[in-house]
């Protein structure tokens, strides 16, 4: 599947009258994810400390940070898997705490580890997700076939998920997140374990979704993906958001000569010394 297939897929969706509202142009430039003073504590330890940020419709937002910085915790709060200790999170204008159902209905989530029902087949899994989002059966059946075809999973659609490779599980997980054509798509390390073709497909899909007005929030360790794909980037370190902005804005935050995202990231998160040592050891 290539970018043309994606375009065909979205054109099919556009014909569906249920999605006319979702695809309305008013999503672009309006805040689809609003995080205000978010705090999440585990006992005494603050995993996320006073984070505030906003992701607009039509924007691909990259969320970067070292291991254990609080990326996954923030993502889990956004999609309603974790309750924040303080602060608010709004998705598509709905408060995740007080209006969880419309907030969840508007978002799709791809976790870092695709824990899926191992004894369901790929097709059954998508049908189940369609039921959870209360989609019409006819739509579910149609979209299932389209998504399976788009992710090159048609031949494995009737095999149980436990027989899938990690990459296939990642793809079916993404297909499940796209079943209801979410206004907000939250992805935690979406390209881990994917072959180059699938990784490219995902990048294309995300870009197209953003072009159609959806907000994409993705965490990644692959700085090249963030640099190329994301309109804006947020960097979190030790639970605190230390930088947010476009690449140009981030460059202005870094030291002179730090032009690549890797340099900026290492400079901001304190990994520059380690990088220098690694350079000497080469």
């Amino acid at each position: 599947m290539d970018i043309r297939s994606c375009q065909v897929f979205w054109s099919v969706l556009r014909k569906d009258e249920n999605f006319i509202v979702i695809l309305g142009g008013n999503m672009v430039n309006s805040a689809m994810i609003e995080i205000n003073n978010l705090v999440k504590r585990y006992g005494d330890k603050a995993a996320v400390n006073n984070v505030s940020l906003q992701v607009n419709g039509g924007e691909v937002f990259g969320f970067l940070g070292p291991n254990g910085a609080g990326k996954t915790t923030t993502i889990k709060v956004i999609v309603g898997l974790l309750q924040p200790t303080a602060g608010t999170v709004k998705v598509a204008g709905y408060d995740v705490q007080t209006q969880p159902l419309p907030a969840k209905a508007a978002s799709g989530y791809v976790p870092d580890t695709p824990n899926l029902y191992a004894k369901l087949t790929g097709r059954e899994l998508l049908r189940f997700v369609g039921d959870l989002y209360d989609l019409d059966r006819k739509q579910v059946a149609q979209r299932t076939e389209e998504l399976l075809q788009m992710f090159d999973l048609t031949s494995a659609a009737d095999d149980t998920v436990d027989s899938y490779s990690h990459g296939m599980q990642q793809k079916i997980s993404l297909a499940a997140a796209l079943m209801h054509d979410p206004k907000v798509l939250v992805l935690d390390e979406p390209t881990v374990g994917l072959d180059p073709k699938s990784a490219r497909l995902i990048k294309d899909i995300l870009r197209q979704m953003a072009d159609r007005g959806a907000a994409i929030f993705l965490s990644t360790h692959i700085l090249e993906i963030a640099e190329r794909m994301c309109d804006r980037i947020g960097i979190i370190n030790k639970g605190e958001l230390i930088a947010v902005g476009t690449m140009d804005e981030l460059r202005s935050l870094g030291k002179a000569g730090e032009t690549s995202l890797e340099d900026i990231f290492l400079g901001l998160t304190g990994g520059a010394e380690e990088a220098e040592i690694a350079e000497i050891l080469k």
Partner: protein
Amino acid sequence: MNTITLSPSHPLWPAVWKLIRLRVLISINTFKHTRTIRKILTVVAGLGLLAFAGMIFFLSWRLLDFLRSPQLKQYAGMDVAPFLQAMPVIILTGLFAGILLSSFGVLLQALYLSGDMDFLLASPVPIRAVFVTKLLQAVLPNFGLISLFGLPLLYGLGLSGNYHFFYYPLVLLTMVALTLAAAGLSSLLVILVARILPARRAAEILGFIGAILAFTCGQSGNLFNSFGSSANVSGAQVSNMFSLVARFNTPWLPLNWAGQGLVALGEGRWLTGSLLVALTLGLSAVAFLFALATAERWYYTGWASMQVVSHRKKPLRTARHAVDSGTTRPNALSNVSPVRGLKRLLTAPVWGILWKDFLLLRRDLRNLSQLISPLIFGVIYSVIFLRAGGQPPAGQGEAPDWFTTTFRSLMSYGNILMALFVGWWLLGRLSGMAFSSEGKNYWMLKSAPVRASQMLTAKFLVAYLPTLVLGVFFLAGISILQKTPLGGFLYSLLAVAMCLAGMNGILLAFGALGANFKWEDPRKMSAGQLGCLGQLLGMLYLPVAFLLFIGPLWLVPVFRLPPVAGYLGGLVLGVTITGCCAFLPPWLIRSRVERLGES
């Protein structure tokens, strides 16, 4: 085909020692980090096992001494010498078969499912060392367990027969040799099976068969007791059993040579004994080395990982077919009021969860074994109940009259009791673990726009519907055999349906509160302390709910009221209280369900 060579720079046994030391270290660390109470219990259990082995040794020594006494032969007319000579043969054959079968599951886990094989094979240790360690790791616990019973018996036999000193170390040596041979052959079997079936599926099938066999064997003892509880074992039967065992001691089975050789050595028949024991040790060594070399070669060359049996795929549904199948939900009945109510209850997410849970229950054999056990249990106890003809057990005639009368009266509702008991058992699994069974997949439900009430409705139905079917199956079966009148049957049906619904509500609520989503093995998903509390409450609830329906029927003659008053009273009391139990506990915890999985 690749050949496996042992590099001289990496000798085998130091590498084996390193890997075993790693295992020991993991065990010590696990022990260190457990709670103090568990440490104490482990030590006490270890000492208890040693004491148990000592007791077996002492008892077998004295008993075998008694069996050898000339007086027994003189008075009872039994010649037990052939039986005693066959004893080591039976024990050692049992050891071999036991290790062969029990190692299979452990080796399947160790070679294919533990996940450390790639790490170990990629590290600079000889492959053979990895395989030897895996074999030892697999057989040591089972060898220890079998030795706990077998070794004291064999030593007791030696002491009672004044066997030669050589007998004792050779018993141990022979047991070790047979164990290694059995483990080696078991590893070959594992690799052959894993070539045909995916290892995870093989483990599931093995677990299913093992659980069903263990449960059936455990419960069949009660069935046999009910068939022959009054039978006494006669001297002739004992004599027959001895001769049957002795007949097993044929020289044509190579497995028997070990036992025969040991007895011969113990009795001082050196030539026969040495020959048979040496033959056993030699054959065991050859079997072990051959199995080891073949297993590691098959594994290393990748032959073992290539499955030869392709799975028959279901015919792929075309998009058109799938679209057609999706149009069936709305129908002409949807405007009828009860149907509309039902549609409001059974929303798409509820249908989705119901459909998904039933599929998973059916497909995962590990779940299925837990679900089949109530059926086996129910069948066995129904047979026992029906054979007794609804009468209380005979006993010693010391029970007071009121007890016997009450018991007989209760037994007339045996159909309800049996249905409730089987239902309670099944609900313990389905309802108590309704949320825990989601495990790490719970994020899919939690991140979806599904209300807590929808989840609770779906989980309630997932547990209730199969339980109701099973309960009604037993109720109807026993009622037919008892020739229960139709009116009584319908009343019983309602009582069972409502009692189980109330029970389901209680268990579901407590199971949800104590839900555990972090399990890897479905057998470890038990819902913790709150789940146990729910089970206890359920045990208290069930007799109370039963009495609410049946009590008024008993009280009617006391107050000289017509029987219909009893039925009406039972209906009002029973339906109200059990209905509350079905509805209230889930309703009370609905806000907690919204927060599940956030810890």
